């Protein structure tokens, strides 16, 4: 039985709009072989469980029977499959180690968005008897959420555009990023309208890629690395499925998930304690909304907070120094990439995007339209 769980290794493929050169297993193996090499661990002897994360409809095959099992070391051993955001795989992995059943768990999330059509895949998330026939997808639902959030809290398109400008500039420092560049607020505002208030640059692009991460019990972690990143707190929470049951400007599920994670970590004032955040900016406004839901600024203040430069690399609270999802991270992989990036920061291995002096980081992932399911992970070194 262990009292603490640590991240002992992280590896990521580069993210790209389309990886024609690899199938799922080969893409996953790029990240898995790298994290094994980095940690000096071997399969099967050093790792006693594995969790892979993707999604049946995204994959176009049931995730329980694809070639992932071979590459993740699940053959004739324990491998669990999870069809939610990759941050939640960290939750399950930590639970397995805390239970005493496992001591070292390999977690891997993968998706190839290039192989299908995001609007059709996401439509399947909607109730077949109620809203599915409208053709709803995550972008249209997000547009409704963005409108409501802007109306209720006075957030402007410019506020959201500043998130895009910051994150795509940050992504220039991230060799894994799928897209990056120097954009202006005017560029974002004048990019093609998709579902106003969301324009093209407000929306995370499709990408292919995989992320692998190894969790270990405290005893194992001390032997594997001299730079363990501890999971100080973790919490998850679901909100209502029907959009109509929620005020989309509210963040109740995130507040509850964050509350659990902060309480576990012994954090009373996250604004004082947290040094950086990696959040699920699937759409530009969501970085603002989630910052408020995480309690890192007051409700309705995230626009001004961002405009002040506080969330830039070198600011008071750097947010998505990696470039976030707006730089192109696959669905399902998104939250594991948030956790991985936060861990790299705390290990001091974030390269050109390194934030100085970070000791506590928050990573947030979400599943479903408008952030229905939320997972918050608090990490410390």
């Amino acid at each position, binding site marked *: 039985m262990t009292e603490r769980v640590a991240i002992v290794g992280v590896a990521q493929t580069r993210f790209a709009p389309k990886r024609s050169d690899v*199938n799922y297993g080969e893409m996953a193996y790029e990240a898995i072989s790298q994290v094994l090499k980095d940690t000096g661990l071997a399969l099967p002897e050093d790792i006693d469980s594995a969790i892979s994360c993707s999604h049946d409809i995204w994959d176009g095959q049931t995730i329980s029977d694809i070639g992932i099992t071979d590459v993740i070391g699940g053959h004739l051993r324990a491998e669990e499959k999870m069809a939610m955001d990759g941050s939640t795989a960290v939750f399950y992995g930590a639970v397995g180690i805390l239970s005493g059943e496992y001591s070292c768990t390999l977690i891997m999330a993968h998706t190839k968005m290039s192989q299908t059509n995001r609007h059709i895949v996401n439509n399947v998330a909607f109730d077949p008897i109620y809203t599915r026939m409208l053709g709803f997808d995550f972008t249209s639902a997000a547009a409704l959420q963005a409108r409501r959030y802007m109306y209720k809290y006075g957030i402007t398109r410019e506020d959201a555009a500043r998130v895009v400008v910051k994150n795509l500039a940050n992504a220039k420092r991230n060799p894994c990023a799928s897209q990056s560049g120097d954009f202006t607020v005017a560029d974002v505002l004048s990019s093609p309208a998709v579902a106003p208030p969301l324009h093209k640059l407000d929306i995370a692009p499709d990408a292919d890629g995989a992320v692998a991460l190894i969790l270990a019990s405290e005893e194992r972690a001390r032997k594997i690395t001299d730079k363990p990143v501890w999971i100080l707190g973790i919490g998850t929470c679901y909100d209502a499925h029907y959009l109509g049951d929620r005020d989309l400007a509210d963040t109740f599920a995130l507040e509850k998930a964050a509350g659990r994670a902060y309480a576990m970590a012994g954090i009373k004032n996250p604004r004082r304690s947290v040094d950086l955040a990696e959040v699920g900016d699937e759409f530009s406004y969501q970085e603002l909304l989630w910052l408020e839901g995480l309690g890192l600024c007051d409700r309705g203040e995230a626009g001004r907070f961002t405009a002040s430069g506080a969330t830039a690399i070198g600011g008071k609270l750097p947010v998505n120094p990696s470039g976030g999802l707006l730089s192109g991270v696959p669905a399902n992989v998104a939250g594991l990439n948030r956790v991985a990036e936060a861990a790299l920061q705390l290990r001091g291995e974030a390269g050109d995007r390194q934030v100085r002096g970070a000791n506590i980081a928050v990573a947030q992932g979400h599943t479903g339209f408008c952030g229905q399911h939320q997972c918050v992970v608090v990490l410390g070194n």
Partner: protein
Amino acid sequence: MATKDKEWISIPMTVDVPYRFAAGGYMTKCLTELRDNGKIFAVECPKCKRVQLPPRVVCAECHVKNEKWVELPHEGTLMNFTIMYLPLTDPTTGKPHEPPFVYGSVRLDGATSVLDHMVEVEPDMDKVWVGMRCRLVLRPKEERIGDLSDIRYIEPLPGQKKPQTKSR
């Protein structure tokens, strides 16, 4: 006493998601060799020496990277089979296979794993058996397209008779 049937609503819907699957490095080589040269290539694990078909990046048993390619002959032994009475659909064409037909798995000589395909044989328990020697029949070269349908079917080698056993 007659009662009026209660009406229950249900909504018909086809969930139609288009895909285009990347074959990846290993299967691209395998399918290219099949299409262009009519050859069957598998990978051999450097550690346990299992010859794996389809070729894949990692040997599941040893967790080492497969890097050695081996060409397999087109002949092998039928390891199992079934006669199908369900009109199962080919998802690349949307058309059903006309029953009855035979599915089988052939272990090509020298391979560890088997190749599953249609067996071109009368759907008759006296005409097909486990242990039957078989060969692959490919499409003519000019008609090959680079997917598994370039193998048309498995057919029995001529001149064999089913061994007399009690079990089937």
